[in-house]
């Protein structure tokens, strides 16, 4: 495993964790706002905008980790029936296209941030948040995702040259139902274990 990719995976794991906690924060924020509106008669009046930004950051910061965990969706009924020699190249092509797409997203997001800075764009909430701030964090997530795609692509390329098809399959093959089931059961069991 390339050292660069190991570092990338560690960054991705941390960013995903932050993304998850951002969602928890968003739930608390919205709940507070709803309760305050109902019972105390006031509201921050910027929940819609703020939690929207939280979502944007949450999605983009989770993208790289989803790649590490092989959870980005592919239709794999056909390729799973192909022989490994052929499948490894399809894995490679898929990743190449994903990298191109991620690269485009990263570029488009940076352009958007530059535009927002140029026009001093702010939102319409009472806080008038400069849009460049949440968009910048969003763009950062997309750039990290692109970076990890690139590093993974390099490693897959090296493995393909070396002829290690099994390693490519392990790295890019989509998660199976078995893995999914196992994880869910683990989550249920972890709790049951702690009670006893």
């Amino acid at each position: 495993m390339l050292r660069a990719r190991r570092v990338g995976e560690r960054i991705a794991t941390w960013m995903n964790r932050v993304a998850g906690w951002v969602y928890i924060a968003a739930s608390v924020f919205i709940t507070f706002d709803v309760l305050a509106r109902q019972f105390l008669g006031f509201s921050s009046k910027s929940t819609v905008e703020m939690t929207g930004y939280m979502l944007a950051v949450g999605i983009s910061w989770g993208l790289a980790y989803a790649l590490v965990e092989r959870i980005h969706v592919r239709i794999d009924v056909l390729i799973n029936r192909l022989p490994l020699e052929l499948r490894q190249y399809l894995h490679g092509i898929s990743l190449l296209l994903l990298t191109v797409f991620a690269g485009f997203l990263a570029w488009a997001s940076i352009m958007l941030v530059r535009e927002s800075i140029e026009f001093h764009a702010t939102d319409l909430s009472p806080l008038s948040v400069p849009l460049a701030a949440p968009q910048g964090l969003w763009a950062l997530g997309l750039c990290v995702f692109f970076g990890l795609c690139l590093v993974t692509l390099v490693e897959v390329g090296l493995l393909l040259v070396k002829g290690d098809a099994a390693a490519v399959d392990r790295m890019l093959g989509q998660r199976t139902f078995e893995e999914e089931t196992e994880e869910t059961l683990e989550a249920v069991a972890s709790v049951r274990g702690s009670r006893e």
Partner: protein
Amino acid sequence: MIAVLFLVALLVVALVFAAVGGPQLPIAAIVALCLLFAAFFCAGIYIAAALGILGLLVGFTFSDRPFWLFLGGAVWGPSSNFVFVAVPLFLLMGEILLRAGLSERLYRALNAWLGPLPGGLLHTNVVSCGIFSAISGSSVATAATMGSVALPYFANTRYDPKVVLGSLAAGGALGNLIPPGITFIVYGLLTETSVGKLYVAAVGPSILVMVLFLGVIVWHGMRTGAVDRGPPTSLGAKLKALVDLVPTAVLILVVLGSIYSGLATPTEAAALGVVGSAVFAALDGKLGFALLNKSAEATARSTAFIGLIIFGAYILNFVLTTLQVPQAMAQLVSKLPLPAWGVMALIIFFYLALGTFMEGFSMVITTIPVVFPIVKGLGYDPIWFGVIVTMVIEIAMISPPDGTVLYVLHGMRPKPGPISDIFVGVIPFMLVYMAAVYIVLLVPDIALWLPRNFGR
């Protein structure tokens, strides 16, 4: 798989057929696009990348405007949309509940009430899956969780394993139909339909499907005599069981109650649900950093994969809309020598076929931007169509031989057996589910009466 190819071919033929006498349209381009799409999917390309890159290719080929300058904004829109915030929040709520050990108590409590009916534990399977999925949102997670709780109850009983597994799978397929399902949020986001109204509309069909499922079990119970019937429970035990239902009932009341009463939007209700489930986990002494952290990580991961597909879909959608393709498609289909219900039947079969190998969210996000203008052009109600699409996707989730839920359950069987057991067991449930779709097609008011009279 053969059926899939046949249906896709049928659709292409229908398009070409219509084009012969139809208006001037880039039919060759559309067909080429479909073929490219199919090739991408067959090659196992990431769905999001396939959508996004197709969008770029189409744009560079057909558009004479600098469309790429607007794509950053086109992607930022949905990713900061307040409606979409409900998706991670409902996922988070499900993840917390999964770890809060609610499932086992739910099953035990329901069993005290439903066990003595003809069909016994099987009713408990369907109802507990239905209730759990109402708060969890993912069919696979529901089947896995409830399966792990339910299957031990059936060890050393004379229940037919086929029906046991079939009823669990069927219960899992209620997940996204019973509010608050996540499919409705994604549908609402893509079509700019009110998610609250969709939730109201789903009530009638949910009850219909549930009743039909229980009917199947009663019929099975009658046929096998008194074998599949639990011992009668005393009233005291029943009342005691109610205590175990309290957390679930309160959560459902908070989430659905706040939406239906108009006190909160679906996103706000989801946030209340997250906090509520955390409170119940805390009351049980289970809330800790580990639980929250694991739930948060799982939520972020799932939201990221849904988000990336949405990015791809919005890019493709933006390009297609600037080229007026959806409008052209809608116009084209309305000129087909087919009645509206014929087109609707084609669409439903198309979804059923697609669903055998495609995951639910991906399917909605990929197809709705194109299919929705057609359906609207034919004069169908957007809310009603949202309910139909969700039902059809749920059927696809449990249709052999590719339904994901079936394999999850198969992997959990305590006593090994052939996968065909599950296939045979789930078929009666699938058939009545299809019957339910047919009934809602014939009587749209099952879905639409409530939102018309009580929707805001």
